[in-house]
Every structure is written in C-alpha cells, then in structure tokens.
C-alpha cells in the first residue's frame, strides 16, 4: 500500500478540491432556467475559455491522441488540424448563434430549430438526435475516467469505484451549480491538463532520446507519413468533416450562449487554437513509446506507459488527477446539455404551460437521472453502445445544413432540414454497419453530409417555407 499513498492522496485531493469549487460556485443561488443552463449569459473571457477547452479536450485527448500516435504515427495529425478548422469556422458561426440566443433566449441547440423553423417536431427530432449521440459519449468519458484513475492509483482504485465516484462528484456539482459550476471546475481542470502536457509529457522524448530528431530516427518508417487506409483522401475528408461538424455538438451551444458579450466570445475563439498545442506533447509521448519499441496490447495506454517509463511511480497519481480533469470537464458539460434538451425541448414542448421554476427543477432532476443512467451503462454495458459512439461525430454533423442554411437561405424550411437529418443519419449508419465504411477512402460522415445536402436542396425547392421565421433570424444577426 505504501507506494500508492502519494498517488491516492493526489487523486483524491484533486477530486475533493473540484467538488468544493463546483459547489461553492452556485451556493446560495436561486437559479432561473437561464441562470442554470447558460449561467445567465454572464461568463467572462477566462471562464468561457476554460469552459470550452475543458469541454472540448476529453480523456481521449490524452488516451486517444497518444494511442494513435503510438499505433499510426502521422495519422494523428488530423487532430491538430481539425481543431483549427473548427475554431476558425466557429469564430463566425458562434457570433450568429450568440446573437440569436441573446435575442430569442435560446438555451439549447434545439431551441434554434424550434424558433427558426417554427416546428416543435423538428425541435424534438434535433433534441433526440443530440441525446442519442451524447449518452454513449458521456458513458465513454466515464469509462476513460475510471480507467485512468485505476492506472494512476497503481491499480488501487478499482474500475467500478472510479465510475461511481466520478459520476457522483459530477452529478453533485452540476446539480448544485449548473453551467457556472462547470465553468469554475473547468478552470481547475484545464489548467491541470495544460500543465501536465507541457511540463510532464513534453520532457519524455528528450529524457529517452535526447532530442526529437533522434526519437523520429528510431520510429518505424510507416509512422512518418500518411498512407494506406489513412492516406490523403481520408486525412483531407476527415479534416473537412470534423472542421464543419465540430460546432454541431449540442454541448457546444450552452457554452456559446454563456458568454457575456460578443467581444468576449470572439476573443475566446482567437485564443482557442493555442490551447490545442497541448496535443503536441501528448502525441510526442505516444510516439516515444513506439520509438522505444515497446509492444502494447492496448494502444490507449501509451500515455500512461510513457509516464511510467520516464518518471517515478508516484507521478502517475498526477496523471490520474489529469485524467479525472479531462474526463469530468467534458462529461459534466454533456450531462448538463442533455438535461437542458430533456427539460426545455422535450418536457417543455410536451407541456407548453410549464413555468420557469418547473423547468429548472426538471433540468436538475434530469441531471441526476441521466447521470445515474450513464453510470449504470458504464458499469454493466460497457461495450454495448460502441456502435453509437462510432456514429456520434458523423451523426451530429448532420445538423450542419439545418443550422447554417437556416441562417442564410430563405427557402430553407423544416421539411428540408428534417429530411436532410434523417437522410444523412441513414447514410452514415448504412455505410458503417452494412456498407464499405469510408467509401473510396473518404470519411463516411462526409458521404452522409453530401447526401444530406442534396436531399435538403431538393426538398427545399419543392416545399414551402411559409410561416417560418427566416426574416426574424436574418434581422437579428445583421
């Protein structure tokens, strides 16, 4: 037990600190629905920045990026690229989204569909798609979290304890403090992730090889270029799909609405790419493991193995804390987002007369229920939702025409948006489960988006957009 005392103390110290900060952020506050879901649209630059970076970079920014670097080498370069593409697109998109949110009091992604297309059914469809693809993602984060805690505590924290403790902590601070709590906790989490990458991980290749050049010399040649099934067509199509699809994730919307003004929001986007530089030390750590010729049964362990090789064992406790940081900052935001969709877009639409107080209460209860559901899924059905996870990114991207054309195209209407989403999701599900996957080497999600857009164009020309609110939206974003 002795060797594990320091790592365990670090991990539990960090979890308790997160819990205290999260609860304090919302203590003695009576939340309105807007105060709860979008922090009253009052977040300043620091909080909005850490809220978004914490949300965006999950446990798999550590596990997956290093694992891919270890297994495939340069293929992981797509992840350095698409973040930038997403942020540069998001810089412009988020400006419109924020303005509309402020004027028409949106709190979720589905709120936009409900208002712009004047259609409850479309809003419910969008909310359901968001929920269906978010729950497995939430579950996955919980599994990643427990996995890192297990390794970080040198095996002393069993997987199931990690899942239960992680979820209970998140439910507690999300329940008590809403988006405000998440943003304060993420201030801690984003800082820790950043430090771990730049201080601990960056040193690893230098410790093991003396210089980056020497490390790359020792890598197998196949790691130095894109090739095979992860060749140039795959790389370019993945960049495009992920760059456009990124801000279609429903959990990105509350963070955008939460900004206190447009200047703050846009400055945040100017700074977002710089945070993504932290992926570089993570990738280098994974490459180092490959260059050392270590064989891993589970490539996602690469970052942990790299740390084990280069440092004394108690340092793993710090990595365990960072794993909690990375996973909880993402998972808590998803948890709140799903609750918002459930309360505002499903409960609120089913019961139109619901008061603000009632909806706030429904949101909070949803936080607990969704949290417990994700916990049970992670505990008892770990592998069951893999299919949904494979579809998640490509799936949420199918909202793209509905959001973007809805802003700029007069003929765009609810029939076109709805048919496009259904056609797009049908296409990706077919390609992934029955068809050839990345047909012609092009990311299957991009095929879905192309079919989606074609369907949207056809349907938009044969149906009418009467009774929808294009003009109102257009005026608001001028």
């Amino acid at each position, binding site marked *: 037990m002795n060797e594990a005392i320091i790592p365990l103390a670090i991990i539990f110290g960090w979890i308790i600190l997160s819990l205290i900060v999260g609860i304090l952020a919302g203590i003695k506050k009576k939340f309105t629905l807007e105060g709860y879901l979008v922090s009253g649209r009052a977040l300043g630059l620091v909080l909005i920045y850490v809220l978004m970076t914490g949300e965006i970079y999950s446990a798999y920014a550590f596990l997956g990026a290093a694992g891919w670097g270890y297994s495939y080498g340069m293929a992981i370069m797509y992840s350095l690229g698409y973040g930038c593409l997403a942020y*540069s697109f998001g*810089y412009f998109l988020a400006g419109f989204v924020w303005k509309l949110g402020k004027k028409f009091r949106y709190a979720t992604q589905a709120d936009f569909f409900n208002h712009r297309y004047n259609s409850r059914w479309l809003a419910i469809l969008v909310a359901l798609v968001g929920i269906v693809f978010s729950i497995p993602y939430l579950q996955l984060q919980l599994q990643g979290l427990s996995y890192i805690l297990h390794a970080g505590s040198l095996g002393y924290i069993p997987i199931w304890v990690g899942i239960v403790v992680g979820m209970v902590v998140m439910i507690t601070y999300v329940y008590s403090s809403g988006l405000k709590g998440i943003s304060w906790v993420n201030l801690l989490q984003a800082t820790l992730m950043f430090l771990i990458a730049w201080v601990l991980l960056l040193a690893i290749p230098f410790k093991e090889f003396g210089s980056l050049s020497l490390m790359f010399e020792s890598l197998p040649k196949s790691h130095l270029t894109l090739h095979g099934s992860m060749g140039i067509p795959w790389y370019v199509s993945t960049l495009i799909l992920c760059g456009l699809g990124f801000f279609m994730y429903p959990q990105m919307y509350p963070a955008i609405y939460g900004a206190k003004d447009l200047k703050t929001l846009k400055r945040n986007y100017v700074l977002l790419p710089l945070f993504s530089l932290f992926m570089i030390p993570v990738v280098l750590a994974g490459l180092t493991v490959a260059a050392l010729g270590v064989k891993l049964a589970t490539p996602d362990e690469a970052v942990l193995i790299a740390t084990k090789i280069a440092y004394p064992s108690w340092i793993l406790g710090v990595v365990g804390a960072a794993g909690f940081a990375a996973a909880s900052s993402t998972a808590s935001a998803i948890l709140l987002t799903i609750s918002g969709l459930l309360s505002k877009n499903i409960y609120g639409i089913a019961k139109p007369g619901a008061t603000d107080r009632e909806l706030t209460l429904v949101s909070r209860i949803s936080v607990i229920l969704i949290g417990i559901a994700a916990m049970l899924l992670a505990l008892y059905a770990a592998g069951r939702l893999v299919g949904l996870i494979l579809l998640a990114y490509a799936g949420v991207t199918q909202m793209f025409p509905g959001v973007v054309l809805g802003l700029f195209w007069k003929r765009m209407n609810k029939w076109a948006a709805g048919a496009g989403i259904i056609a797009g999701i049908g296409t990706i599900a077919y390609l992934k489960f029955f068809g050839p996957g990345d047909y012609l080497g092009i990311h299957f999600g991009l095929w879905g988006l192309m079919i989606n857009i074609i369907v949207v164009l056809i349907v938009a020309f044969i149906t009418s957009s009467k009774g929808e609110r294009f003009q109102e939206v257009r005026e608001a974003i001028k």
Partner: protein
Amino acid sequence: MAKKILHPRILALIIGMGIPWILFVVISPFLNFPEPRILGLPPLMFWNTLGIVLTSLCLFLAYLIEVKGGKIE
C-alpha cells in the same frame, strides 16, 4: 472618401476562415514526406504545429477588422 475594396465582414471571413482552411486542407496534404526534419519534426507535423499558431493570428486579424468595421459592439 477612400473607396472600400472589400466589405469588412468579407475581408474578416477571407482572413479568419479562408487562410486557416487553405493551410490545412489545401497545403498540408502536400507535406506528407518523412524528411527533412524541421526543428526535429517531420514536415507535416511541423506545418500543422505552425498552422495552429497562424490560425490564432488570422483570427486575431479578423477580430481587429470586425471591431474596426463596427461589426462587434
């Protein structure tokens, strides 16, 4: 009155979105070689790292243009 060549919103869009997308989607696929090492990195990794910094810079320029053009109050 100096003639306006481009509307500030269009100019911001070209710099803030056009340049980063060209850096990654158009140029980076042509750097798929193992050699030479630049600052110890293969060309693609070096370029994408540089691209991250340049993207921030482009968005900063777009921000300045938008603020100056009165697009962000």
